[in-house]
């Protein structure tokens, strides 16, 4: 799985370390591809905040997007992605440098997002009754494909996101979600069938 590169372009940094895109809007700057992920983790373990920032910039957007596509809730996605990075900071000293960072992060993000989506789906009939309403802040999905993914069951959303956004193999997905590989394949197949019209249209 290749880490998704962060879109960027010419950017400057203010004195807070926030980078700004050419149009003046704050944006996350691209990272140097020269520094390998293993080197970044090693540097972070030595206490280098720049390495942590580089890791964050490499992995934030895929993590946030994955969490958003599974939860369909911007606040939940932000919390889930943030917590995954904070967890990474906490276990940094115990992290196995030989292993790639992204699958580890994606496993946490997807499972947390899936838990959230399932719990939310279970609560919905109660909320719908009107007595126990807890309005959740929800962002509108602006993209057709994302909207179509949002209509899938949470389990299907998770496998679609892991396969086609984060680009993991079905075998990796099976390991991440603790599922038989056949289950992953059948969920993918069914989800793809449901998405067929939106993707090609």
């Amino acid at each position, binding site marked *: 799985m290749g880490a998704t590169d962060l879109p960027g372009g010419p950017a400057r940094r203010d004195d807070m370390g926030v980078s700004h895109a050419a149009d003046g809007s704050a944006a996350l700057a691209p990272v140097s591809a020269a520094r390998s992920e293993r080197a970044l983790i090693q540097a972070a373990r030595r206490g280098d905040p720049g390495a942590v920032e580089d890791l964050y910039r490499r992995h934030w957007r895929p993590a946030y997007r994955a969490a958003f596509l599974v939860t369909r809730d911007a606040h939940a996605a932000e919390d889930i992605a943030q917590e995954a990075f904070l*967890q990474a900071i906490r276990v940094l000293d115990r*992290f196995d440098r030989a292993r790639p960072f992204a699958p580890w992060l994606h496993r946490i993000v997807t499972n947390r997002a899936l838990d959230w989506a399932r719990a939310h789906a279970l609560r919905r009939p*109660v909320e719908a009754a009107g007595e126990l309403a807890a309005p959740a802040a929800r962002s509108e999905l602006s993209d057709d494909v994302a909207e179509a993914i949002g209509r899938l069951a949470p389990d299907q959303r998770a496998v679609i996101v892991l396969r086609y*956004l984060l680009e993991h193999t079905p075998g990796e997905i099976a390991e991440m979600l603790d599922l038989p590989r056949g289950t992953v394949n059948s969920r993918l197949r069914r989800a793809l069938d449901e998405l067929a019209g939106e993707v090609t249209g």
Partner: protein
Amino acid sequence: MNAHEQLLTARLASFEAPGEIEAGERGRRLVLAAFVERTPVRSRRFHLPRLVWPVLAALLAASAVAVAGFLRDGGSPRSARAPFGAEVEDGVVLALGRGVASTVDAHGRIRSLGPASDGDLSPHARNAVLASGSFLVAVNVEDGQVRWRMRAPGPVSLPRWSLERSVPPCCRVAYLSAGALYAVGGDSKGAHIVARRALAVAPAWRPAVADHELAYAAPDGVHVVEADTRRPRARVPGRRAPISLSWRADGRELAVLDRTGATLYSAGGERVGRLSAHGSVLAGGFAPRGNRLVVLRRDASGRAAVLVRGAHGPLRAIRHLPLTAAGDFRLSPDGRSALVASREGDEWLEIRLRDGRLRHLREIGRRLRAGFSPRVLAWAG
């Protein structure tokens, strides 16, 4: 990948989630701040003779299976299952923040159970009962599924699950609504009024008895009744306004806490003794196991302290807490620790009762995604 899948990959590659730039910037600051605050562990390098490495490799190979399992979980024993880190050392805590109840367990697993204003856990923490407006809602803690939901005559408060360590319908849930005390079966059947007038003090189920005996506070004192039949078992006059009722684990003694201390009564209602807290009592009760009576007190200087009494003797302060505004106070299911929710900072304090050791659970509301310093409704398991 076929053409359809390639197209989907391409469409998702160009997908932008709403708010990702702003959220990314907020997260960046948070993550960097967390990184700076952490204490880095410096790696030690051992220079071993070359011949030692094959021996070490052989030794390590013997534990390859365990290592493989460890690595599968991402290099951390709890990483995949417990992304938030362990919040409590034992059992399950029911927390309340932003109007939503959630549980967090000793592995750091967090489960959102639904909207609530109050709640309690069953003894094994398999079920939670939540007060939500005029509804009492029982929720399966493991999957968050609502088991049942029933309407009460008015807003529900202080629900308390009885102490049988088996599954519904064995048990009862007591709750207050519209100034009266009610009880209902653990399967939502048989809801009935127990007392027409009850004070806003949590009712206390008597442990270690076969029938469902319940202590509750009324304007004329503290009563003990059989919840199903409403048959009175004991009554103690209310000289002081009670703030908490608690049974000793063997069910033989009832502590009635008021603002200045605790009065102990036998199960039959005879007064056994009086314990002064030498300050203002905020909360307290008997530990779920053993004989410990634990009290949270605020002294004249405004500081909070935890007081403990064993089987005998007075209440003794074991730990002064670095806060003056304490919120909820709960004892661990094994009776070894207490949890205090701070109302000054976003943290819970866990106090080991044996020696007063203090553990700060900082940024607890943020970690539980439950607002600022969430309430601690129950601790069970």
